[in-house]
């Protein structure tokens, strides 16, 4: 849980000032520090950014009355703006999960 919270907070802060790929940095460092098992590392890492990016997207979606997410869903041909939010979460999750896994493996 601490790992998850730290991942979310640090990724959020880094993402404010650095390009999107900075969300991999917390995973690498915290994965190395906390050194969980491989499966758990990926899982926590994935969940952290899935929640962060997915959550941010969900907030924007509602605050914007879904105007843009609906248009992007149509552009991508995915049908529903919720799928756009889901994709956002998964993309963030994949990068962070893989980064956390790499961090923990580098220590082992």
């Amino acid at each position, binding site marked *: 849980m601490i790992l998850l919270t730290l991942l979310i907070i640090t990724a959020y802060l880094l993402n404010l000032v650095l390009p999107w*790929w900075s969300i991999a940095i917390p995973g690498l460092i915290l994965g190395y520090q906390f050194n969980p098992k491989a499966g758990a590392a990926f899982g926590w890492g994935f969940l952290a950014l899935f929640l962060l990016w997915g959550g941010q*997207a969900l907030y924007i979606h509602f*605050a914007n009355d879904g105007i843009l997410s609906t248009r992007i869903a149509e552009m991508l041909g995915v049908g529903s703006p919720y799928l756009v939010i889901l994709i956002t979460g998964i993309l963030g999750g*994949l990068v962070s999960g893989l980064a956390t896994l790499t961090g923990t*493996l580098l220590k082992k």
Partner: protein
Amino acid sequence: MKSLRPVFSSLLLIGLIFSLNTKFGSVPPLGKFFDPQAGFWANAEISVPESGEIALEGFEGNASVYFDERRVPHIFADNEYDLYFAQGYIVARDRLFQLEIQTYDAAGRLSENLGSRTLNRDLTTRRRGMPYGAEKALEVMKADPKTWASINAYADGINAFISSLEPKGYPVEYKILDFSPEEWTPIKSAHLMKNMTRTLAGGNNDDRTSNTIKYFGSDFVEKFFTVKPELNDPIIPASRKWDFERIPVQKPDSLFVPASAVELGEFKKPEGVGSNNWAVSGSKTKSGYPILTNDPHLSLTLPSIWYEMQLNAPGINTYGVTLQGAPGVVIGFNEKVAWGVTNVAADVMDWYEIKFKDASKKEYWHDDKWKHTTLRIEEVKVRGEEAVLDTVIYTHHGPVTEVKSRINEEREPAYHALKWIAHIPSNEIRTFYELNRAKDYDDYVESLKHLVGPAQNFVFASSAGDIALWVNGKFPNKWEHQGRTVSDGTDPLYDWQGWIPFEHNPHIKNPKRGFVSSANQESAAPDYPYYLDDDFAPFERGRRINDRLAEMNEITVKDMQDLQLDNFSYHASTILPELLEWLDEDSLGVDEREAMELLKEWDYMNEAELIAPSLFRRWWGNFYASIFNDEYRSTKAPLRYPSRDRVKEVLKNEPDFEFINNINTEKKETLEERALYSFRATIKGMTENYGEPGENWKWGYYQNNDIDHISFIPGLSAENVFSNGSSESVNATRGGFGPSWRMVVELGPEVKGWGVYPGGASGNPGSPNYDSMLESWRTGELYELKFMKEPPKEFLYKLELK
């Protein structure tokens, strides 16, 4: 093995990040794109912008920008520099992508950012000489201190906005297409004007008319393209007498015949491009002051081509719509006058067959001597690929094109040079600079002298009570029908031998009938001594407007708004009764008979809820095709199709007209058979495409009014906007073309305006303001325009530029 796991995992991570940061084909870099902080999510507007002060580096001035509830900016500045700087800044803030993509397109530079898929368009743009024309225009603009100052101030404003942007703030299209804005330079304003010239004066029939003579003979061309329909109702009516002698031109003894059938590319203007404007004098209005209207019909896009704005500084207070890339207001009004434009279909684009001395193409034959060509190297940069170099040969006529033709004849088509008004040095921006400040009729006329092209019918009204209309632009002084066919590039008699003097341009002021109007129809009655073109819009819209205005009195603003929304079809009313008469009822099945009843009851109004307009459109299309397609498809050469208004006359008067027969059958077909078969095909086709008769057959859907995104990005458009109107109606909405701005202005001590366009001020698809006026536009509602004499006390929000 285990020691390899971290290496493997690291590589996988690097690979993942790399691929999510890279554009594949048309897929944007996904990581970058979905990032909620800086990707497309950052473009979702979650609150109305707030008032504030913006300190801009390098800007010494001061401008206050008040946004009203529709977010129309009202700019108040202390001087002209600050005014145009603020205009550039505000337009960039709302429409940056549009500003850039339009001018990239006009400069033949799309591929730089979009890759090889736009390469052909870029090459064509360059071979037509659009960047060449823009460079020439820039020289004229530089030489005029007022224009030069305004386009530089405007450029500074755009650049101030661009340099304040971080990638996170880029409009969403940049994120989708993955590129960045570049610095704005004054030549881009010239590119924009060339873009308008291409849209409005980039059509000609040269190859198709020549081919039609070759295959169907000159009598056919005479019958359909020289003879005018009886119902023609020219812009400048026959009652106008001309008190000058035309400047004579010398005509060749016989008409040049091209070496072979020619195919020069797609130059047919889409039917929906056209416009209406009119002004009624105070003698016909309730208020006693003139009322002026304008609705330019263009390809409808999101964001709209237009942007509404008020510009106020010492010496200027004007309101109207702007074109993105040009300082000033293009269609609008000020405290004394109002003006509007419709397109003039003059023939200002001619093709010349060129005779080169040898394969080197260094010399060409003209006026009994060999003359030297010049070369212009066009470098088209292509994203992700090597730049393409294209050498374009120029003769004194213009750039030379070699067309690979589909037509299999013994001889390949020769080389053709293009003479086009877009190559003539010009400064249209100066016209609008002066119109924005015009106080009376004389100022208006003075401003028009700067306009070369695209030629426009400038309608005018003043609070002093004048109404006027000038068919205005620089027109080549041609002999009758010069340039409607492919011209002889060796004979100087085919050159543009001079210009129609400005004072000889067709015009009219305060006519007795109490109104002036234009709807792209023939510019002037046959007694006007110069030749402009043989291909103007059908009489339908123009005649309807004149019919209505002639019978109206005590006119109010509401009456004029209603006339803009008039859906009457002169087209249907002048052929449907005959079609129904030719149709043999006894041969019809049940569905067919029901459809026929709908047509019989129809009042010729193109209303969205009706099915009859769909049936009529399709039936007429099938009927027309059944008359002409058998002959027209007997060759691969592109031929010129006759205009429907003339075809109807011929069919009504000449039942034995030979094209009625199908050349592919043994028997001889009659009009009655053509009407029946095409009617059956109509019902069959409708059922196949839209199912059983019902909701889907309604005109509002059938006319397929899609308002696409300017770069055709799916999802950023408004599809199938259910609307009244048709291209032949005054309300010329059809298939994604139509009234791109509806404006009505009442002159008087307090000038008042009303307007609407199908879109919104914001170019951001993530803002509710992106298409916020669309519904009002669709239902025909106009907004009262807030024309202010001083800074307002109430506003949505306000920006202070410092």
